[in-house]
């Protein structure tokens, strides 16, 4: 197989498929290369959040809002059932110790332009009656949404294919190729060479390994996260519910949460997500334990215990499955969406950690704008690879 495209996108997860989609929309000739099946890595082992509430107030949350607007368009234009539901989401405030931090978070997000509310006392249980009776507050973001992440990947891939993109699953890139000037000229794969003057590396946690071969250091580490799937049952809550402590496990720092040490050690924080099929998902864990995707049963036990702390009525609901995925972590919790200055024609779009589904639309859009040399929808300085140079 030899094939020639304008742009080769490496990685058939949510980020690669969004980039392929937005480039194809601009009539760019794209080949999407994926070593396994489409959505078989991190995007097939995650949940489906489109959340602004858990982003750092400021650039991070603005990026998410832009992405949510693009997602609204995708839901209309992609011919696939994405199981999209915009019900908002809430953060649960556990006790008096967390309250001032939570109120501060609420205020800053509101000032950043998010549709926020703070609920206290009886309002909490009018909103979610089955929450544990000792919790004291809820921080709500009305625009947050959820969808089926795998359906979004497949929807974007099928939409791209229908407008001319070449989709190459089960094709592993073994090397990014450079010409005599050092500029990108294609890739070698397990199914032959492919040529293009632009290559986008969107391989999530597997990005650094491909980049280092062309002398580029990408500071992404796999951060493992587990999820429990519950049977179809009467819903413990009507929409996305996360403990406020989730922000602490996400951004670091464990003050303000009274939990057993092993909960913190594995980064356990309760995340509840109802699906459109009547099941619900329970997260979360965050830990750096290499590339092992097998479930750690002790972590699953801790997650179940943490879920019951917030939803005691879950006790008799059955768990039918568990899975773990590797979230691509960067040191400052923002993704890398950037050209690589040292290798002309090479771009990186990776490092979204647990925000890949929500940030995929804006990432695809930004990458298509960068490659076309157009002004970008939002400033991209905070997303540049060279921010990590020191």
């Amino acid at each position, binding site marked *: 197989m030899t094939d020639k495209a304008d742009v080769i996108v490496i990685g058939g997860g949510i980020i690669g498929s969004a980039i392929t989609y937005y480039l194809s929309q601009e009539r760019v000739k794209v080949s999407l290369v994926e070593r396994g*099946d489409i959505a078989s890595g991190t995007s097939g082992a995650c949940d489906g959040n489109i959340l602004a509430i858990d982003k750092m107030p400021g650039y991070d949350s603005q990026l998410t809002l832009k992405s949510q607007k693009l997602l609204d368009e995708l839901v209309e234009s992609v011919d696939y059932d994405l199981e999209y539901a915009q019900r908002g989401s809430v953060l649960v405030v556990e006790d008096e110790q967390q309250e001032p931090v939570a109120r501060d978070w609420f205020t800053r997000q509101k000032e950043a332009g998010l549709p926020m509310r703070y609920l206290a006392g009886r309002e909490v249980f009018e909103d979610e009656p089955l929450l544990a009776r000792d919790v004291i507050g809820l921080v709500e973001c009305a625009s947050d949404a959820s969808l089926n992440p795998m359906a979004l990947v*497949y929807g974007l891939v099928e939409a791209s294919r229908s407008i001319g993109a070449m989709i190459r699953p089960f094709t592993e890139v073994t090397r990014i190729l450079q010409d005599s000037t050092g500029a990108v000229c294609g890739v070698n794969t397990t199914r032959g060479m492919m040529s293009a003057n632009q290559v986008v590396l969107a391989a999530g946690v597997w990005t650094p390994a491909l980049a280092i071969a062309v002398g580029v250091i990408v500071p992404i580490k796999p951060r493992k996260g587990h999820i429990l799937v519950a049977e179809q049952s009467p819903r413990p809550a009507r929409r996305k519910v996360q403990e406020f402590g989730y922000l602490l496990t996400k951004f670091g720092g464990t003050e303000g949460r009274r939990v057993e040490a092993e909960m913190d050690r594995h980064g356990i924080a309760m995340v509840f997500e109802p699906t459109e*099929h009547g099941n619900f998902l329970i997260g979360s864990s965050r830990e750096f334990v290499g590339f092992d995707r097998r479930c750690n049963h002790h972590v699953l036990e801790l997650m*179940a215990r943490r879920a019951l702390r917030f939803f005691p009525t879950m006790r008799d609901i059955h768990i039918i499955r568990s899975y773990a995925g590797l979230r691509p972590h960067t040191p400052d919790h923002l993704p890398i969406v950037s050209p690589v200055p040292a290798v002309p024609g090479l771009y990186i779009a990776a490092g979204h950690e647990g925000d890949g589904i929500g940030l995929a639309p804006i990432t695809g859009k930004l990458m298509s704008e960068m490659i076309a040399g157009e002004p970008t929808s939002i400033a991209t300085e905070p997303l540049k690879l060279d921010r990590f140079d020191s």
Partner: protein
Amino acid sequence: MEDDTIVCRCEEVTVEEIRKAIREGAVDVTGVKRRTRAGMGLCQGRTCEKIVTQVLARELQKPLSAFKQATVQAPVQPITFNLLAKASHD
């Protein structure tokens, strides 16, 4: 098998939906599952996995033996939150 025959009873997935998933690139039971939800329900594919494999074999013109079982994940049978939460205390 008729197009509208239900293969996965838990998630009500039909033969035609499985064929469509295969046309869109599914090459194994897990690929069909991600695209259709077949095998994602209460029985976790115990009932439908063999039938999904038969549809795959027929559509892709390969022998049944060419298909691996789907990944097995805990729990091997449904377990309540309460039991899992106390697993190491018993």
